[in-house]
């Protein structure tokens, strides 16, 4: 008969709590950079020529059709081997997840920009706004309110994807769990603590973000 013993998990709980914070942080930084990439590329796509469109579509399709795990390895082991430089695993993972998030953000923002009613930009023209002003104060604010639900889903999804950082030894939540598990062989206890941590955090995030969505929703 197996006896549950959570002692080791609790004494090293700091590994899990700090890991969880790092997971959230990785997802947060990556979505910020990903949004910057996505926004600029989406704007470039909607206003650019054939070449720009092709390049953006190529980037999006490539990233979306390749496993994230392969991208993690490629950036951590592959790129430094030809580039002749090195970065630590956390930086490497942030780069990977940002590029990955960026590809999804391009799609989100492109759809968002397309959904901004044409009447709004026409109205902007009518009151004499310049092209730049129309983008900054008409199209972007409206677009952000349209894409808010997709953004919160993407954030929670990226939070779950940070578990892959454990394979290159970034000390996030899954890595902390692996560490405890390997040192104590308390497999069930470890996952019994870590799984609810992922679940509760993920759904709490979703709950808060959905509140925000409702606050800013366009009626």
């Amino acid at each position, binding site marked *: 008969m197996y006896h549950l013993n959570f002692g080791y998990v609790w004494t090293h709980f700091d590994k899990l709590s700090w890991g969880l914070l790092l997971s959230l942080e990785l997802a947060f930084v990556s979505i910020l950079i990903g949004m910057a990439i996505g926004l600029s590329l989406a704007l470039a796509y909607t206003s650019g020529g054939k070449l720009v469109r092709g390049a953006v579509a190529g980037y999006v399709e490539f990233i979306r059709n*390749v*496993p994230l795990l392969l991208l993690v390895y490629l950036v951590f082991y592959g790129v430094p081997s030809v580039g002749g430089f090195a970065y630590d695993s956390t930086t490497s993972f942030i780069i990977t997840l940002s590029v990955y998030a960026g590809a999804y953000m391009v799609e989100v923002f492109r759809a968002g920009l397309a959904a901004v009613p044409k009447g709004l930009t026409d109205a902007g023209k009518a009151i004499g706004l310049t092209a730049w002003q129309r983008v900054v104060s008409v199209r972007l604010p409206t677009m952000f309110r349209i894409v808010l639900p997709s953004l919160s889903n993407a954030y929670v999804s990226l939070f779950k994807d940070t578990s892959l950082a454990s394979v290159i030894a970034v000390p996030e939540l899954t890595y902390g769990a692996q560490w405890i598990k390997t040192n104590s062989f308390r497999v069930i206890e470890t996952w019994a603590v870590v*799984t609810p941590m992922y679940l509760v955090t*993920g759904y709490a995030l979703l709950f808060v973000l959905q509140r925000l969505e409702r606050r800013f929703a366009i009626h």
Partner: protein
Amino acid sequence: MLFAIQSLPFLWQGLLVTLHISVLIVFFALIAGTILGIGIVYGPGWLYWPIRLYSDFFRGIPLLVLIFFMYYGLPVFKVNLNNFAAVVLALTAFKTAHVIEVVRGAIQSIPKGQTEAAKSIGLTFGQRLLHVIVPQALRRFLPPWINAVVDTVKGSALVSLVGIVDLMLAIQQVIGRTYRPMPLYVLGAIMYFVINYTLSLASRRLEARFAYIRE
């Protein structure tokens, strides 16, 4: 480049394993997901909550955690699965949750009037499902389902972490021999890309094909 070409037969074996695992998962998840998806829409209240809980639970935890749990955790409960069975079980449980949502969305997108009309001409539940709901819901089901298949192929790369020599681990092993990471990762990325992009294109084709349906 010679070593990359020499490694191709080995990578091909890995690719077959990736495809084998993906096909199994897609097949099992399709069956389980369709049954549970129909259950969540038409089933009684006591059926709704367990399925909703199942779906939200499995969509709420990272796939990697699930795979590790099935492989390292289940033996504690005297369930000893080999790594292949463990990952197929983990990924199927995960994908089933997604298929449930796709099925639910597809069925609920059919206007209520269709069911009411079918009822009024005296069709039984089975007939309504078979002749009215499914032919229409299928169009809504296929594009997101193919996206789920792409996700399965991508997610199957995680099985390399419990020692199954799929395409991902095959790449890693060749790199272990040759110390040339970049060309091999790029080669692997291209192989994954070709499979998944083909599927994505099919999904987009279908979506365009069915775009004429508007209510």
